[in-house]
């Protein structure tokens, strides 16, 4: 009780003035169309602690770096939010490019763990004090930091698209014909590619051994290291889990990712703004429309446009249908992970199919929808589709969700396999920056649609689904709850769908995006999906960063798993619901 009363009272309504609180360490970011504060890196931890404890920004949403090559500066950008809702706070810290070192914020926000490793791997910013600063997305032995602006990939052509004509004088040439070792692949002088043998995973195993905990002190046993994946039937793709086992019990676990890494962000920075839209489809390839949504919001903030009424409704309808299709699929595959032989999965896929039919009719594609545009959407609903959605959300889907609930929720084996397994407490969930169903199943009623409403979500009546045990079972239940809430939103949206135009202004291939920065975030099916976009007025974004929920939700994975059995690793992973396209980017 004493400990609880010792926590200072946080006045959530108090105006933030960080610069006044730390006059010599913090200045307001005054660059045009930029917001937030710039913190002196020597006092970063102190300021971050104050932001968390005094101002109440307890949730670190996103950490990323930006390479300002012309200024010779690297900047690390932090987006923090309050779990009680409301807009967020941005603070940044700068470091010289040649020797980029920043103190790690893992002691303050444990959720920075994987994100700082990513920034180290891709931008070469060293985070001093990080407990486990290893590569995360690139492979061992990769030379260079690919997201730095002076790094050029193999077959590099030009800085930004659209590229020049590849048919000069009617003569076709392919960039691949160029010798890749000519001048655009960088490797150390004494490096001979033919003789290269990849390093083993010594660093990974060291880190795994260091984090072993929960061993029985009285039993003399050997710890067995098992690599689940990257080729494994239940990792939902090429994901690898290095586990240390004592018998069947897990004593340490490290997720290893990056097998599907394609440097989405670098590609995004070469693309024009609009060309990125179809690329976002490929992040979480099961819910492309939500991905579109976040990116469109971020760029619209920069452009300062808002879509017309009908387009807003169409966006919400599509995003909520995506959520249902994602959750129903997640539940199906989750049951598969528990060992149910495909039966629930196939029944779930049947319903998902009906939703995909609607996507196909409207957007032209079942999964890679590419539907959103800045200030609108590409196509209106074809004839008859509105009625189809109406029938689906009023009759068929509510019934089918109830059916799933009826057959699965009280199954004896499902309950005994999941209840009390993989617990993440509310405090841990916030600290590890868990998002979406994982966060809400731990008893934190935080849903961006309510906490920081975007688009027209403030008009609809729905409840934020929340469960309180934080175990695998609750992470399953919350998806059922969320489908019901999504159906409520859909029922209202399809009823009120107004007539009118679907695109603000006229559709354009090349949009003009004024210089500035913007962070657009949506409540995706898997959690908070954020896009941090910086424009410098050119046709291509200067920085394009994706805050991927599948990726960041894995930060707490080890905590959930340690102490449980091997079989639970799979069940817990299924309950987090990751998609590797988004995890690895």
């Amino acid at each position, binding site marked *: 009780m004493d400990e609880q009363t010792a926590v200072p009272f946080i006045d959530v309504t108090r105006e933030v003035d960080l610069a006044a609180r730390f006059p010599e360490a913090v200045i307001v970011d005054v660059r045009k169309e930029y917001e937030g504060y710039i913190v002196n890196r020597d006092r970063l931890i102190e300021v971050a602690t104050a932001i968390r404890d005094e101002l109440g920004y307890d949730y670190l949403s996103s950490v990323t770096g930006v390479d300002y090559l012309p200024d010779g500066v690297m900047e690390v950008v932090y987006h923090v939010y309050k779990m009680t809702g409301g807009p967020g706070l941005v603070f940044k810290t700068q470091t010289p490019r040649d020797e980029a070192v920043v103190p790690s914020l893992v002691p303050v926000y444990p959720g920075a763990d994987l994100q700082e490793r990513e920034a180290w791997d891709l931008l070469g910013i060293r985070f001093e004090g990080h407990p486990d600063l290893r590569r995360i997305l690139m492979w061992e032995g990769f030379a260079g930091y690919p997201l730095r602006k002076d790094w050029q990939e193999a077959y590099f052509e030009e800085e930004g698209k659209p590229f020049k004509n590849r048919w000069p004088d009617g003569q076709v040439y392919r960039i691949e014909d160029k010798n890749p070792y000519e001048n655009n692949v960088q490797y150390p002088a004494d490096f001979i590619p033919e003789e290269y043998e990849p390093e083993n995973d010594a660093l990974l195993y060291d880190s795994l051994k260091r984090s072993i905990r929960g061993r029985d002190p009285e039993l003399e046993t050997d710890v*067995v290291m*098992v690599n*689940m994946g990257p080729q*494994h*039937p*239940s990792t939902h793709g090429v994901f690898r889990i290095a586990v240390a086992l004592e018998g*069947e019990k897990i004593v340490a676990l490290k997720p290893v990712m990056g097998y599907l890494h394609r440097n989405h962000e670098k590609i995004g920075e070469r693309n024009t703004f609009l060309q990125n839209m179809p690329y976002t489809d490929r992040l979480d390839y099961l819910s492309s429309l939500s991905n579109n949504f976040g990116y469109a919001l971020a760029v619209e903030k920069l452009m300062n446009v808002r879509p017309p009424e009908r387009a807003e409704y169409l966006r919400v309808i599509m995003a909520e249908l995506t959520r249902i299709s994602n959750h129903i699929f997640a539940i199906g595959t989750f*049951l*598969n*992970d*528990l*060992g*149910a*032989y*495909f*039966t629930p999965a*196939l*029944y779930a896929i*049947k319903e998902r199919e009906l939703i995909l039919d609607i996507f196909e009719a409207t957007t032209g594609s079942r999964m890679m929808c590419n539907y959103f545009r800045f200030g609108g959407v590409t196509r209106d609903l074809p004839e008859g589709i509105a009625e189809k959605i109406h029938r689906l959300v009023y009759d068929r889907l509510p019934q089918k969700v109830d059916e799933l609930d009826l057959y699965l929720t009280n*199954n004896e*084996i*499902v309950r*005994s*396999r999941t209840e009390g397994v993989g617990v993440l407490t509310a405090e841990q969930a916030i600290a590890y920056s868990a998002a979406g169903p994982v966060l809400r199943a731990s008893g934190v009623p935080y849903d961006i649609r309510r906490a920081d409403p975007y688009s027209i979500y403030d008009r609809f009546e729905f409840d934020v689904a929340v469960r309180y045990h934080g175990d695998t079972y609750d992470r399953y239940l919350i998806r059922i709850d969320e489908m019901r809430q999504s159906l409520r939103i859909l029922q209202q949206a399809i009823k009120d769908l107004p007539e009118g135009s679907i695109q603000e202004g006229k559709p354009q291939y090349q949009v003009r995006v004024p210089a500035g920065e913007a962070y657009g975030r949506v409540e995706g099916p898997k959690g908070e999906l954020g896009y941090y976009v910086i424009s410098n007025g050119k046709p291509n974004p200067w920085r394009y960063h994706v805050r991927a929920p599948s990726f960041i939700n894995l930060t707490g994975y080890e905590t959930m798993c340690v102490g449980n*059995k*091997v*079989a*639970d*690793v*799979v069940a817990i992973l299924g309950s987090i619901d990751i998609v590797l396209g988004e995890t690895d980017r």
Partner: protein
Amino acid sequence: MDLGLWIEWIVKAIILIVVLLIGFMYLTYMERKFLARFQNRYGPNRAGPVGLLQPMADGIKLIFKEEVIPKQADKLIFILAPVITVIPAWVILAVIPLGSIQLFGRTIDFSLAGDLNVGILYIMAVTSISVYGIVLAGWSSNNKYALLGGIRSSAQMISYELALGLAFVGPAMMASSLSLARIVEAQSKTVWFAVLQPIGFVVFLVAALAEINRSPFDMPEAEQELTAGYHVEYSGMKFAMFMLTEYTKMIVVSVIAATLFLGGYHFPFLTDRWPWLGPLVLFAKVIILLFGIIWVRATLPRVRYDQLMALGWKVMLPAALLNVFITAGVMYVLGMIA
């Protein structure tokens, strides 16, 4: 010895093996077809009419597969392991009584040794051997998943064999014999033992599912955790041998269940009048039991290893013991035993 008896044995053995092989092939087909229907899809329907040639296609495919033996594997044991698992599954069927007819002036028993006076002990002894094959396969593959699968499987078999053995005791007590033929006879005089021994029947069914590594107790080969468990390194025909064992054991366990608890080859009125129907009656009972096994697989998720152990030792074993005590008590009260 009598030459006629030899010929009879050889013919019966060949028939039995052929029946088992065909049974294995078409059990895979049946399982795939039923699972498909449970799951809203069609199942195999390309090879032959309604996919009836699918098992042949699978077999031909497996024969032509490359036989990979891992470099670090213990070769001899690696090759031997599938054989050790498959033989016991086949020889169990020898003691199943199938009824008899009068032909050529002598009584021809359809089974090989249905009248063996220690039939139940024989079954217990032989089923336990096949676990060696699984453990050795897991160990010799030099693969951690395989090893985990092998270890799981040995622990599981030991735990469930106890309950299984005790479930055998009930029918044996009621028939006052260890011979399967006597047990079937005893049932033909009263009613099926499934009615008189409900607890024993349920314990037997559950323990049998665990014994043959079928869902929801398919721990040793849990796909989601251990990729394929003990046979992860096997390919081609060696892999097929493991599959053969699994499906043969499904058949065998169903046959034993039918014999011990569902009256075996006997069906009231039917087989009394036409004794040659015996094998067909047994066949029908086995098909129904197999359907149940497949149904369970399509329906239930897998239990966890520790839960499986807890179920085996804390629920199944006491229930089986209780069943033996109750049976003995009731028989004593009724004066059936001294």
